């Protein structure tokens, strides 16, 4: 099929970007979206033009690198997938596809479709961990009984790949779903409860310092999350945060 691509091009972080139109022909419906961009880039290189810079790594929906806003939606029109799992059969011959980077103050554009998501790393560093004694007498995690429901919820939260689709979809560029998933995965498990108070306070503090917006509870993040992280995690984080704040 033949397509028209309108792609955000931005030379570097300091220069202004703009949408640039490209025509691409004979795209196979079996191609993944990133393979289609590979073909475009090969064509641009052969024409001695600058290829489109985009992030990718695993290409199997796990790394969360392929941060693209396709036709007005994070990771494109299909549900519960990342852009690398999006296939061209989701589009029709003659379609115009708009491709933009995540838009958020806390995710500045590095080049074209690549954004700097290190703000997520700094939030993780602020509390997204547990302190374990590794001197040789560590207790086997499987030796600690955990309620099945809590374990399931913790594992569901832990499936967050930190792709940033929640931020990209949220009208306020809020990172609440990401932070809530990280807070929840530890708060529900006995190993995480020890540092729960400091964790939630520090992670929310870092989230705010990075310039993410407020949560308006529109639910867009939950719909667009490739891993289906539930809004219940945000409510849990709110409970954790409020309890921690009142505790001092």
């Amino acid at each position, binding site marked *: 099929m033949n397509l028209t691509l*309108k792609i*955000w091009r931005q030379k570097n972080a300091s220069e202004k970007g703009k*949408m640039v139109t490209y025509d691409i022909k004979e795209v196979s419906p079996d191609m993944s979206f990133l393979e289609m961009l590979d073909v475009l880039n090969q064509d641009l290189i052969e024409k001695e033009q600058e290829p489109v810079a985009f992030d990718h790594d695993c290409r199997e929906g796990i790394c969360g690198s392929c941060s693209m*806003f396709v*036709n*007005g*939606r994070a990771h494109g*029109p299909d549900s519960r997938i990342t852009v690398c799992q999006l296939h061209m059969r989701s589009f029709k011959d003659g379609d115009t596809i*708009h491709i*933009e980077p995540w*838009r*958020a*103050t*806390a995710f500045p554009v590095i080049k074209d479709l690549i954004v700097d998501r290190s703000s997520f790393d700094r939030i993780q560093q602020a509390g997204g961990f547990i302190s374990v004694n590794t001197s040789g007498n560590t207790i086997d995690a499987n030796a600690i009984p955990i309620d099945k429901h809590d374990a399931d919820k913790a594992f569901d939260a832990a499936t967050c790949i930190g792709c940033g689709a929640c931020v990209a*979809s949220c*009208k*306020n*560029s*809020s990172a*609440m779903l990401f932070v809530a998933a990280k807070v929840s995965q530890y708060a529900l498990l006995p190993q995480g409860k020890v540092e729960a108070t400091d964790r939630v306070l520090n992670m*929310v*503090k870092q*989230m*705010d310092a990075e*310039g*993410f*917006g*407020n*949560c*308006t*509870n*529109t*639910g*867009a993040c939950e*719909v*667009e999350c490739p891993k289906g992280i539930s*809004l*219940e995690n*945000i*409510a*849990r*984080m*709110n*409970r*954790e*945060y*409020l309890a921690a*704040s*009142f505790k*001092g």
Partner: protein
Amino acid sequence: MSGILNSTVGRKFAMAISAFFLMVFLLQHFAINITSTFSSQTFNEISHFMGTNPLVQYALQPVLIFGVIFHFVMGFVLEYRNNKARPVKYAVNSGNDNSTWVSRNMLLSGLVILAFMVLHFIDFWIPEINTKYVQGDMSGLLSDGEGYRYYEELVHKFESPIRTAAYSIAFILLSMHLVHGFNSAFQSVGANNKYTRGLKGFGKLYAIGIPLGFIFIALFHHFNH
């Protein structure tokens, strides 16, 4: 606990608390006003009690005014940060595919409600304060001394089709605000789990039922008199 109002989570919590307070107020306001459709005497007696009781006038009324102002000011504070969080907008954004229009436009519906409240204050609250505290007439009686004035004043206001239409439109926007706001407030205080699912249905009922009831009151007095 220090600095809770400086955090995004804390501010949303404060927003939710003020919303709960305003929703309780709205319910009691409706409960009083609906009496005007079946008993002018009951409406007059409750209105006189509310208008002259020191606890209501000097304790609850200031708290209410503070709650209203706080909710609006905090709404703008939150919106300011939200706008700063995304300086460059998307060329194409399919918001309808992942969220409702009302959830994305709480500021817009809030501004219409704010405009309505200005009108409502000019219509009822300011004349009431003027009568009671400027002119010093706490009797609540009509100028000829024949019974209470509250019902007559209410009926008189809704003679105007423009005012009736304006009130009705504002109540539709209030309903839209509440359809999202009711459950959003519970989410902001952390109440979203298997125990609170029943609240969602009640929230929709409240959000549609109360504003619809207010529209009924406005139309009832407009067409009955």
